[in-house]
């Protein structure tokens, strides 16, 4: 019999082991690292102040008074309803190439929305219908660039973003939004414009119970200034297949000293359309491990592609590429 005396009371070794086991189990059960994380965000009142007013030259030369965004941000509400989803309203307002700028006032923000794409017709249809309805109520100047991978190689999301960024730079867009085709914003207050710091926009995704799995997540929908994107040499071109490229982007930003920011959860709600899970890239962890060595050599400056076609559709600028 092993009996241990603590103070005046004596305990049997089995009792102590049981107690220790229970306490360890309890601590393990409540350890926070296995769960979603809280994150810092810009308070509601500061949102408008944090947005960078920057436009393309063709907007600058326009006459008229500036659009007001205060009401939009303060009066943020749920807008993902049938009215916006089912039908494209006032399609005559949209210029060829999927470009729009408000007619009654001068937009303060110009944004290129870059959407990598391959073989998801249904989602693209839903995306374009909703996004054009959604973005026009924000009174910004925007253009949707759809970059489609034409070849049969595994989907290379990062390279398509690099190509999209290069094309958007040709059109003088100062702000890029790297957007997945299956994500759609739910709140009207998530202004599609850039902040000084790169911004992770879909931090409250319904698929993840409106929580953020980890703070370093920087994928899905991301707003970044064109100059910053060029400064970090874009994204890595080596990630074929699903996963890893967004973490690589985050690494690049942190190595250049860029901190990311987010809007409050009530502004950052997104919905994810249903789709079959992509084939994960088995090599992604190895690539990510050595990411820091490739920052200067792999990215916009090592971009190789052939543009098969560029066409201005009524709702988007279609860039068909072979990587």
């Amino acid at each position: 019999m092993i009996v241990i005396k603590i103070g005046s009371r004596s305990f049997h070794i089995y009792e102590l082991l049981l107690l220790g086991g229970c306490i360890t189990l309890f601590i393990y059960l409540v350890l926070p690292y296995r769960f979603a994380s809280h994150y810092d965000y810009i308070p509601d009142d500061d949102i408008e102040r944090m947005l960078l007013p920057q436009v393309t030259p063709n907007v600058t030369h326009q006459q008229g008074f500036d659009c007001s965004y205060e009401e939009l941000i303060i009066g943020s509400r749920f807008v993902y309803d049938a009215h916006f989803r089912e039908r494209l309203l006032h399609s005559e307002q949209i210029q060829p190439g999927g470009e729009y700028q408000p007619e009654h006032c001068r937009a303060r923000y110009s944004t290129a929305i870059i959407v990598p794409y391959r073989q998801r017709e249904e989602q693209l249809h839903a995306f374009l219908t909703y996004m054009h309805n959604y973005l026009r109520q924000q009174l910004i100047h925007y253009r949707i660039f759809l970059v489609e991978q034409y070849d049969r190689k595994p989907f290379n999301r990062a390279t398509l973003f690099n190509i999209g960024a290069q094309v958007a730079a040709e059109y003088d867009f100062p702000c890029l939004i790297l957007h997945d085709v299956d994500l759609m914003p739910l709140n009207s207050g998530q202004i599609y414009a850039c902040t000084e710091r790169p911004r992770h926009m879909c931090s409250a995704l319904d698929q993840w119970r409106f929580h953020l799995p980890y703070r370093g997540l920087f994928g899905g929908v991301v707003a970044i200034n064109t100059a910053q994107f060029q400064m970090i040499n874009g994204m890595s071109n080596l990630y074929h297949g699903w996963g890893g490229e967004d973490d690589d982007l985050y690494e690049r930003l942190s190595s250049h000293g860029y901190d990311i920011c987010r809007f409050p959860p009530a502004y950052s709600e997104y919905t994810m359309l249903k789709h079959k899970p992509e084939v994960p890239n088995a090599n992604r962890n190895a690539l990510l491990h050595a990411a820091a060595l490739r920052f200067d050599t792999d990215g916009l400056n090592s971009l190789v592609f052939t543009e098969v076609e560029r066409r201005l559709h009524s709702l988007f600028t279609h860039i068909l590429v072979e990587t």
Partner: protein
Amino acid sequence: MPNNVAATGTKRNNVSRATTTALCCCEYIAHDNERFHILGCCCNCEDFDLVCTRLITCRRIEQRNIDGMLIAFQDRLRIPWHGGAKRVSPAALAPGLIVPLMLGLAALNANTAMVLMLTLVGFTIWGLRLAERTATRTTFFLSWLIFSLLYMIIIFEFEVPLLELLPEENCILVLISAASLYCFFRTKQLAPQNFVTAQYGTTPRDELPGIAEASSGEEQAEQQEHEAATAHISLQMDNVLNIDDDDLGGAGGSEGASLMHSQPNICEICRKCTPTRSSHCAVCGSCIKRYSHHSFWLNCCIGELNYRWYLLGLTTAELALLLGANLTLTAVCHPFLVVRFLGVPFLLPDDCSEVFEDFELGISFAVAGYALLMASYIGFDLMRQLYAWRRGNTLHEFKRTTLPSRNRLWSNRRTFFK
């Protein structure tokens, strides 16, 4: 090896050793008073050897040997425990296999899950009815409860995508579950104190001469058995003569007698004076103070001292199950936002059509469904208990006063249709 020594030594030595030296956690005293080690469970069973030999050689097997073999099997099914290995009944082990098998099958597809859940409901109702009718003291339901809880925790911790849950949500769930477990633990711990002990009251010996005095021991009771039996019969005769005993069964008899004679309660089965509102529990074999009911799930009686703990345990268990099911379902299904309260979103599952495509999601979904089933059962029980409690009754009194009048036709259906 101590068991080797025990096996080779004489029987007398063994017994003396068993009584003098303490057992290690893997040793026990077998049914033939020999000291045995748990690792030797497959050795040294003569009846089993004999049965096997005769089975192979096609000779007649005697019933005595089969019984001996079964007794040895039951005796050797033990788990290591501090102070000697403890015997576990097969009924207590069965849920450990049935529950995971059931949950695993339910994770395969929606139809299997539906059929299994319905079977489970039917099986549980049948089992409880059977246990109630035969007044069996069984650990099966308690074991079922413990294993269900264990597998629920395991599935929640390892299969549900936890990265989608906030640490606070998990903390609340863990705390409520722990509170519920503690309440049920206290309920069970306090249950023996509900027994009406021998020290209670005095018997009016002159009026009811046959009934043993409450403070008497068992031996005295045995001596007076004959007298008691006659008193028992006379009391029952009284009941038959004076009360229109339509639905008050044997358990209600003692109250009936006390009401009639305006005497202290007397339990004929225990042959004791009992406090008012106490009743005899056929399963526990004792009178229970302020008897509410016998809980087969906890394998103990709910009475004066533990009914508060029991109610608190039911409430917290209900909350924990609902919260756990909500967290699991919203994590594996596509959720929608009901309201964002103080920055915390409250979600409900929206579209669960894809959960069965993946086994991990499927089993999480099955466990959540199982939790909801349990929650609805507990909810029903809780409502009944709270309603009775509000009226100041115990469940036992509540049933006795309301059910016979309400269900007269139903309970008399056999005679009605004759």
